[in-house]
């Protein structure tokens, strides 16, 4: 059966869902609200293009997703080569420049490595704080890959980064996140 749109009920039916979707990805309350509003307004313009193939919510979420990617792009205004070089340079915090051996933040056991789940609330809180410290572009690459499970090619195209830079960001983000956890947990 083809799905139909009911704009008169959009806010009641989907506003909270879309707001949650946005807030978990951009972590900015005002911006999340703006994006929800923009999503509905943009959707109204596209009503005629709605083919009924997906549910109303899926359709609206796809529009929101594009809005979120736009803000990622604006925040990072593409990835400049200097940013990457900076990221590479900073890596000397972790590794010896000559042979690549650990020099700082050498991994130590957290005591959670072998257990399945059941991590304390305290650890989760630290994780959340550490995530917030990541630069916007890293965060967006990270969430698109891990949460939305987008293919690497899609992420690179949408965020306008090269594949090589993509892997540098992923590596860099994880090194920082892990080091932050270690610093605050042990």
């Amino acid at each position, binding site marked *: 059966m083809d799905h139909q749109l009911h704009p008169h009920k959009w806010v009641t039916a989907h506003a909270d869902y879309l707001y949650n979707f946005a*807030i*978990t990805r951009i972590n900015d309350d005002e911006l999340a609200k703006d994006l929800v*509003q923009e999503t509905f307004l943009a959707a109204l313009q596209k009503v005629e293009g709605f083919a009924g193939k997906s549910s109303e919510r899926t359709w609206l979420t796809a529009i929101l997703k594009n809005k979120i990617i736009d803000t990622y792009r604006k925040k990072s205004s593409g990835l400049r080569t200097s940013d990457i070089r900076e990221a590479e340079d900073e890596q000397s915090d972790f590794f010896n420049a000559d042979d*690549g051996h650990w020099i700082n933040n050498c991994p130590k056991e957290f005591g959670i490595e072998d257990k399945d789940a059941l991590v304390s609330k305290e650890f989760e809180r630290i*994780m959340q704080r550490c995530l917030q410290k990541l630069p916007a572009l890293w965060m967006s690459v990270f969430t698109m890959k891990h949460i939305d499970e987008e293919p690497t090619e899609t992420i690179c195209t949408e965020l306008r980064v090269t594949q090589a830079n993509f892997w540098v960001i992923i590596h860099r983000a994880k090194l920082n996140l892990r080091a932050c956890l270690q610093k605050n947990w042990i």
Partner: protein
Amino acid sequence: MSYLKRVIYNCKQATFLIEKKSMGKISFREAIELRIHLYGCSFCRIYKKQSRVINEMVQELFRSSMQRNAKLDDGFKKELQDRIEEELNKN
């Protein structure tokens, strides 16, 4: 430094390959190098486990925050629906 020694020392490359392998493909040669490195490096063995745990935790964190259901306040919702109605009436 010999080739083998470079592989054994290079934790930067090893952790890079761990990340790449966990969500993409690495070449056969890279896979062998990673295995050799991990055999001799306890730091990177810990890193590898933690990297996986971190991925799972981040996913879990996002899932649970999606379920936490932050609500928009009613005033904002009413304005929003009014805005939509306004647009609908234009046509």
